[in-house]
């Protein structure tokens, strides 16, 4: 993907250089050729044909429209992670990055990834707006409080790459940096499995425990008598009370836990208590990870 971005960059650089040389060249050439040779000298009549005016209006118009298309197509590809992407969570807070692998490993200001496999980051902020920026991969996405944002990349080569926060977030904004460590798949597997003391439980396991501790099962049991069943919910289309349809992705789950009144499912009342302020972002991630494991064929 980075290569494609660079392709557009260098094309534009070449185009800009060519146009600049053209304008500079004409300016210099005209300035020399038509410099005033005597005081009181008059300018000569020069009729610029209308065709020329139109040409330098519509040819640039065509060129910029083409660039628009190129940039837009790139953008769509950058937004759409390929299937089979590995999901990792990232939390931004003043002034550090906390990365949470699904299997439980936690990292601070570092992200280990395998090479050759697309990685999809789901991110949120615990305070102000930050931005996750990896120049080497040509990716960047703002990290917002109250919402999930996503980005994806595929580390082609092993190595270490700069990670910067790219949205001004206060005093230590310049220090909110880290590194992406891309390891070949086996090395990554080894790293993932290593228990260095900071490996927590898999998110889903912690989530299951939390689910029980918070008595979510009281309403979200096996069927739909009190609250909508969560079996097979993740990724499915959900019909809401006002008739609209939405997809139960991570963002929907987070919102439905913290502020359930925002989207009430069809056929239910607005009865679920909001958990805003009662759960940390990490706990929400754990619950989401657990809900993702609830398949349609969950045992009774």
């Amino acid at each position: 993907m980075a290569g494609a971005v660079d392709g557009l960059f260098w094309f534009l650089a070449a185009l800009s250089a060519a146009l600049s040389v053209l304008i500079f060249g004409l300016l210099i050439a005209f300035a020399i050729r038509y410099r005033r040779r005597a005081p009181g000298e008059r300018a000569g009549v020069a009729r610029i044909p209308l065709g020329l005016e139109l040409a330098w209006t519509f040819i640039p118009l065509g060129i910029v429209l083409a660039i628009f298309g190129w940039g837009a197509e790139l953008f769509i590809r950058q937004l759409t992670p390929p299937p089979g992407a590995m999901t990792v969570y990232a939390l931004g807070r003043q002034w550090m990055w906390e990365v949470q692998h699904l299997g439980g490993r936690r990292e601070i200001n570092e992200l280990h990834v395998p090479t050759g496999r697309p990685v999809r980051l789901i991110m949120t902020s615990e305070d102000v707006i930050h931005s996750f920026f990896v120049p080497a991969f040509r990716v960047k996405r703002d990290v917002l409080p109250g919402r999930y944002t996503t980005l994806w990349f595929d580390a082609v080569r092993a190595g270490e790459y700069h990670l910067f926060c790219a949205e001004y977030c206060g005093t230590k904004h310049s220090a909110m940096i880290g590194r992406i460590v891309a390891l070949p798949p086996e090395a990554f597997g080894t790293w993932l499995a290593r228990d260095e003391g900071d490996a927590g439980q898999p998110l889903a396991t912690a989530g299951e425990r939390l689910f029980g501790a918070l008595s979510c099962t009281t309403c979200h049991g096996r069927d739909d008598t009190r609250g909508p069943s969560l079996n097979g919910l993740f990724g499915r289309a959900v019909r809401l009370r006002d008739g609209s349809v939405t997809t139960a992705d991570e963002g929907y789950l987070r919102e439905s836990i913290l502020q359930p009144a925002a989207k009430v499912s069809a056929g239910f009342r607005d009865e679920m208590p909001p958990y805003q302020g009662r759960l940390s972002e990490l706990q929400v991630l754990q619950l989401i990870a657990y809900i993702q494991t609830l398949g349609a064929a969950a045992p009774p």
Partner: protein
Amino acid sequence: MTDADADAETDTGTATTAATVTTDAAGAKSYLNAGFGVTSWLLTRDHKRIGILFLVTLTLFFFVGGLFAVLMRIELLTPPGEIFQSETYNKLFTMHGVIMIFFFLIPSIPTVLGNFLIPIMIGARDLAFPRLNLLSWYVFVAGGLFTLAAVVAGGVDTGWTFYTPYSSVYANSRVVLAGVGVFISGFSSILTGLNFLTTIHTMRAPGLTWFRLPLFVWSIYATSIIMVLGTPVITITLVLLLLERTLQIGFFNPSLGGDPVLFQHLFWFYSHPAVYIMILPGMGVISELIAAFTRKRVVGYPFIAFSSIAIAVLGFLVWGHHMFVAGQSVYAGMVFSLLSFLVAVPSGIKVFNWTATLYKGSVSFQTPMLYAFGFIGLFTIGGLTGLFLAAMGLDIHVHDTYFVVAHFHYIMVGGMVMAFLGGIHFWWPKITGKLYPEGWGRLSALIIFVGFNLTFFPQFILGYLGMPRRYHAYPEELQILNVLSTAGASILGVGYVIPLIYLFWSMRYGRTAGANPWAAQGLEWQVPSPPPVDNFETRPTVTDEAYAYPMRGDPAVQEGMRKTTEMPP
């Protein structure tokens, strides 16, 4: 060096039939000596004096903002950034931005050159609302005082963009003071724009149809439209921000149901058109300079006039290009990207037409023209790099990096400030009745051009390599480029100080200027230097097109040329 006055002896052509031309030197009654003393200046209603009041205030703000920039560049000499604490550096770049944008760039050409020249260029005695004009200056000063108070009381560190929730909930600096200062300055902008719009509509001299207006007037008109329509939105946005900060209300606070991205939409709805407020007057000045120093009518007059209006209109529709990575919808992003590309086209039209004007012109190279050349070159580069940013897929990489910083400095400093200096030098004889020293003028123009490129070109590379903006510490491998940039900044600083000195000097010791030292066309060159209080002894009647320079060849050709470039009725 070319003696400009010698050129004035030749045929200048007359564009008016009823204006009385007097060329007597200092000692004659002019707006400068019609009353002395502080009150005659502080309570003036004369648009020319008000323009000078603004010039003094703006120069002060420019150098304060410039000082902050120098401090920033010194900090950036070393990768770990050891001279200032993080917090101090954050305040430096915030206040550099706030002061330069709201208290220099946005007002500059309109309130100085616009105020001084618009009534004269349209053959009027003053603006429509002279007292409102003076009020505009007082309001501006009040806003400036609040902002300077914020600086003195500890500074503000949110970035000039005041993004929430950092600015409304988390920042520990003087956000309210600075916000109030900017809020107040907005009213100054609105009053100025309102004054210009009304004046241009209702007070043009007899015979001065829209398409006989100088292109500078067109550009100020377009700028005034933006000032009037856009500024109220930042006004109300700042009110909401300050309410949120002081009363903990949740307009933009996610935990209360607010949306921080809504702030960005409201903020950029004004702040993007604001950059066109900054550049359009500069383009107007360049049109005047090109005409005067090639001695011919600017090519494609109607195209340039309409492109100003097009930029003003389209400029309101592109604000989302600041938010491609901020979490707005993909479809919105596409619309903004497309429109951003469209708004590039009218700017290109201007550059091509200016270049074409040199063809078969009679080109001279006095200081204002050097600034005009600098503008065209640097604005072209700055504008082309805008294409990089409008392309969504590429913006993801360079957004919030030094690439953006370089882009807007090329346009604002390489473009706008050069246009401002070019205009100041061009109209200096008219404003003060004195000539500046031409040699020093050309030297500083060159120093500024060199210093500017050395400062800001490396920043394009820094941005592509990934250096984020608003960072005072950066990876080691980026140091050389940063050092080059700082070296350039020191040269640029020298380049700005020199004109300050010699312009001041010329007010007392400069050679006396005649009414038309450049032998240029335009109503302002038909009145004495400096002009009398009411500008004209009798109201002129206009019968010629703008820039009616006498051309080589016979009058029939001249007539024919007018007919082909005249707009259909």
